[in-house]
């Protein structure tokens, strides 16, 4: 990739994410919970369960199940959105589940369900990625057995240049080939669990974007790991 004189509106480098922060334990009532902030996008997630699946006819005796709900708060965007579910939120809920499930070991919980509730408090693009990051953290915080962590980032293409982590302003970019948004979620060992794309990109650049996503996801992973460690008071050393 050529590091041309492409200037991002907020002055970030091409491969630079927005400042991220993560914290677990933000919802004391929940089994596990987390907040994930990426620039001006803020997501919180809470995990309840494993608990008996209701309604009963949805129980699966072979394995536990994951249920995800993604919701944008009505005031999280400039034009208020009607509260409640819509087609977009239903799709992202399912996408979130698909992104996380490969990392979970739910076979140990037959007939049970783990509920993950993701809420977007403030939105500035990349809400599904922030939501997935918060949800993965909340699951780990809840002590749900996991094979690996899941981290998520959106790769963008502005005109012809690949960049990491688009903001809303960049999503509305209109020059040249316009914006392309490619949210990707990965396990830490480099398996793709979720990927979507909106825009225009050739095969080669799309392949490149996967490699970029891996690098960025590794950064997110470190933040997630630190948040989990910070939540544990290590005895002895202090």
């Amino acid at each position, binding site marked *: 990739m050529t590091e041309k004189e492409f200037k991002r509106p907020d002055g970030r480098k091409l491969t630079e994410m927005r400042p991220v922060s993560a914290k677990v334990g933000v919802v004391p009532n929940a089994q596990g919970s987390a907040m994930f902030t990426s620039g001006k996008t803020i997501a919180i997630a809470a995990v309840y369960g494993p608990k008996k699946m209701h309604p009963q006819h949805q129980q699966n005796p072979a394995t536990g199940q994951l249920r995800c709900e993604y919701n944008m708060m009505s005031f999280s965007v400039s034009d208020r959105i009607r509260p409640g579910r819509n*087609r977009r939120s239903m799709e992202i*809920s399912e996408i979130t589940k*698909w992104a996380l499930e490969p990392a979970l070991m739910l076979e140990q919980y037959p007939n049970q369900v783990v509920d993950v509730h993701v809420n977007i408090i403030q939105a500035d693009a990349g809400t599904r990625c922030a939501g997935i990051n918060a949800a993965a953290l909340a699951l780990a915080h809840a002590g749900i057995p996991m094979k690996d962590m899941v981290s998520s980032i959106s790769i963008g293409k502005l005109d012809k240049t690949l960049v990491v982590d688009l903001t809303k302003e960049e999503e509305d970019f209109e020059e040249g080939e316009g914006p392309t948004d490619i949210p990707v979620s990965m*396990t830490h060992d480099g398996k*793709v669990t979720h990927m979507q794309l909106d825009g225009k990109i*050739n*095969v080669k650049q799309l392949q490149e974007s996967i490699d970029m996503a891996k690098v960025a996801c590794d950064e997110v992973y470190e933040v997630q790991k630190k948040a989990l460690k910070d939540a544990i008071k290590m005895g002895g050393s202090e």
Partner: protein
Amino acid sequence: MRLRWGEVNKMDKQRTTSCITAERIKQYLAEGKRFDDRKLDQFRNLIIEKNVSNKAEGSVRVRLGKTEVLVGVKMATSEPYADSPTKGNLMVTAELLPLSAARFESGPPKFEAIELGRVTDRGLRESGFIDFDKLCIEPGKKVWTVFVDVYSINDDGNMMDAATIGAIAALKIAKIPKYDAENDKVLFDELTDVSLPLTDIVPVAVSVHKIGNSLIVDPTREEEDISESRITIGSSKGMISSLQKSNSTALEMDEMKKVFEIAAKVSEDVLDSIEKALK
């Protein structure tokens, strides 16, 4: 449309393929073979019948093997969205009719139908196939909205790609109705001979399915039942404009990269068959 929390989770797909058949399909695929003698990256025979519903501005019946969908285009005038005052609108919806398979039930759309509509929409919208600027009647006041509605007639797998093929074909043959500006009325009975403003970027969708270690396209119902992951890619001449990975299966990075190549290549074959079928 209001949807209750939990609705999605009832979607647990009913699978109709037995374990024995599933095993045999996998055995075959491992040897690069399929039950119907197709290659792994080969589509079924495509047949498109035009103008199947006369009140629609454009309509087609698409048959992909035994899979069959009806797609109709309707138009209406409306106010433009505030963020695009000079652009027309597109609305794509899909319905999986109970008549098309035993596993579909009536009632509010389930996740599968919602995803079908949204992924089809994204492919058409993002590619630049429709020139939305030319669908403006009066900037800031009146624009055309193009409705693309997909109905399943018989589900034998790969509804996803059949829906996009149908949408492309229906849009291509659609004619804009007459608009009476004085009375702000659309005269649906008087179709003009003006086609929709389309470009030559045709966003053909190709879904690549992962079954075991094999990557295949255009699965039959049996194959789709045992698919571990579906990656639907809309592309035109090597330019990818939409992508959606479905299901809870992780793919290696290299596997994903291969998927992009397969989809881009196969989409050109499919575009050829669409053009042949429309002749």
